[in-house]
């Protein structure tokens, strides 16, 4: 087990380097001069000095090494359009808000999605099952901006139950403003979890060890709770990492609609402002989060299901 974990952790390093390289190479391809804030051209001498200051006069692979060094020392450089702030400042400002949004969305998904899937699997082809699967199909198909606007329109504007936008600024504070954004973001993972848990429960119930448990005369609750449920939740753990990418993408949209000052909003603004260091910093940050989540999920999977350790 230890060698499995060590091998898996070491493998993460080239993956991170590769993703940074990809982001770096892609950003190099975008045209535009970051030092040009007005219509006037920057005088060549100043341009040259600025380039020297930011090491832009070096070959690209040297720049890449500098950037990797900076990333590993948690320094993502200065923002190019907001002179007084660094990318770190912007991430420190926006990331906790996005993180809270993401965690709450996952909570919705886990608290509603998993029970729905379990109940649907316990009574397959019942009315409840059809109902749950119908809603999960719809949750799959609705674009998140549509869900968000529907919620704002009917829950916030028509019913007036919660405010239409805004976000509690401190990480630990929660109020009624978080309900709609997190639910809108959580709908897709909720539908996904419900479907996944249902499928994997039905599959587990066909297993020999479940039949044995039933044949032994164990009470129904014990069979379901101990033998079926525990094993059918393994796919949920595995699905968390790829879902994280979906959630991060979703936060971009949800933050845009609900005017939440998270990193997604900063990202969109920075693309329009050609603020490349922020775009790059946020891309690298979100990618590294997904890579680390993948790492944890793989290790968890290795613990939960010993058969997978050797295969990887």
């Amino acid at each position, binding site marked *: 087990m230890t060698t499995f974990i060590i091998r898996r952790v070491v493998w993460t390093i080239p993956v991170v380097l590769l993703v940074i390289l990809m982001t770096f190479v892609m950003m190099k391809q975008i045209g535009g001069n970051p030092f040009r804030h007005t219509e006037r051209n920057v005088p060549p001498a100043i341009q040259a000095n600025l380039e020297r200051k930011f090491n832009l006069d070096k070959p690209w692979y040297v720049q890449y090494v500098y950037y990797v060094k900076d990333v590993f020392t948690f320094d993502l450089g200065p923002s190019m359009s907001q002179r007084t702030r660094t990318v770190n400042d912007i991430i420190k400002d926006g990331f906790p808000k996005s993180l809270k949004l993401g965690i709450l969305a996952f909570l919705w998904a886990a608290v509603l999605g998993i029970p729905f899937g379990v109940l649907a699997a316990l009574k397959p082809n019942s009315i409840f099952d059809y109902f749950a699967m119908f809603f999960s199909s719809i949750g799959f*198909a609705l674009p998140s*901006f549509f869900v968000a606007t529907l919620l704002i*329109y009917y829950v916030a504007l028509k019913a007036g139950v919660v405010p239409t936008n805004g976000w509690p600024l401190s990480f630990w504070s929660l109020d009624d403003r978080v309900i709609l954004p997190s639910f809108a973001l959580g709908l897709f993972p909720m539908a996904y979890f419900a479907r996944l848990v249902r499928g994997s429960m039905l599959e587990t119930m066909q297993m020999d060890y479940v039949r044995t448990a039933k044949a032994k005369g164990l009470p129904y609750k014990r069979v379901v709770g101990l033998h079926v449920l525990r094993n059918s939740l393994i796919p949920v753990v595995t699905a968390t990492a790829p879902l994280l*990418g979906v959630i991060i993408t979703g936060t971009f949209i949800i933050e845009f609609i609900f005017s939440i000052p998270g990193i997604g909003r900063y990202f969109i603004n920075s693309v329009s402002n050609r603020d490349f260091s922020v775009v790059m910093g946020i891309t690298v940050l979100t990618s590294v989060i997904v890579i680390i989540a993948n790492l944890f999920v793989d290790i968890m999977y290795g613990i939960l299901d010993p058969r997978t350790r050797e295969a990887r």
Partner: protein
Amino acid sequence: MAVDRREASIPVAAPPTATEPAAGAAVRQSSLWQDAWARYIRNKGAVVSAIIFLIIVLYCLVIPGFWKIPGAWTSIKDYDPNHVDFSQSYAGFSLDHPFSTDKFGRDLFARTAVGGQISIAIGFAATFMILIIGVVYGSVAGFIGGKLDNGMMRFLDALYGLPYLPFAIITTQILSPSGSVSFWSMVVALTIASWFTAARVVRGQIITLKENDYVRAAKAVGARWYRILARHLLPNTLGVLVIAIFLDLPGVVLGEAFLSFIGLGINPPTASWGSIAQDGREAYRLHPEVLFIPSLAIATLVLCANFIADGLRDALDPRTRETG
């Protein structure tokens, strides 16, 4: 779809339970598609979804041409999707404007159709690019195998699960330096962001097929590698690919809508479902229909594509049929 319409010859009452893939190639092949068609037809949800899907596609293709026919509708000029008429701003639902109008008085019935053309075209173009890349990458990895396969799959693992939106946005920015995002840069961006799954699926399929006896037999009689690949392996991945079209399409259509909605995709005044939704966003408190109509169109299309994919999977690959 390459489905033969010889379903009449198939007794529906006696469903074929399992198909054995390894048998005389030509005869069994057509029968596989026949079986699949028969199974698909019996899946009511999938058939209804396919019909609705076709209706949406037809609506998008036919309606924009419709207003050009003189006398085809009462007030012809209002059906020009880009015809601005401020007196008709947010005109509401009427016979003249079945889907109401937007801020500029542009008819949404025509605009949703034109936008649908763009969205669906981006969807299919990107899906086909995904499949082409997937087939090439997957069959190279799966067919050659060994270290190359290992390296190529490790590369895919590394990219797997990365949030696609930032990379798609960066790609559109690279391809459109002037700031206005073109059709093809959207296609490329969405392809780059989501080709991994197709490559993985094709590779898995090729690896399984490679071990079949008929491939060994072909090798034994001296068939060259390209013949084995083109004649024995790739045709058998066709089923997976047909399913993959409808599995990948929803993601791409949604991706286009997301990008356009946040203002980094198809630019107004060009209509796409995402950019109409973006138009609708500024006034959704008073006129939610401008946002709801394209969103409903996207949702319906995506829902249908998901059901079609499910139906195709059950039809083409009965072994993986889900219980219940």
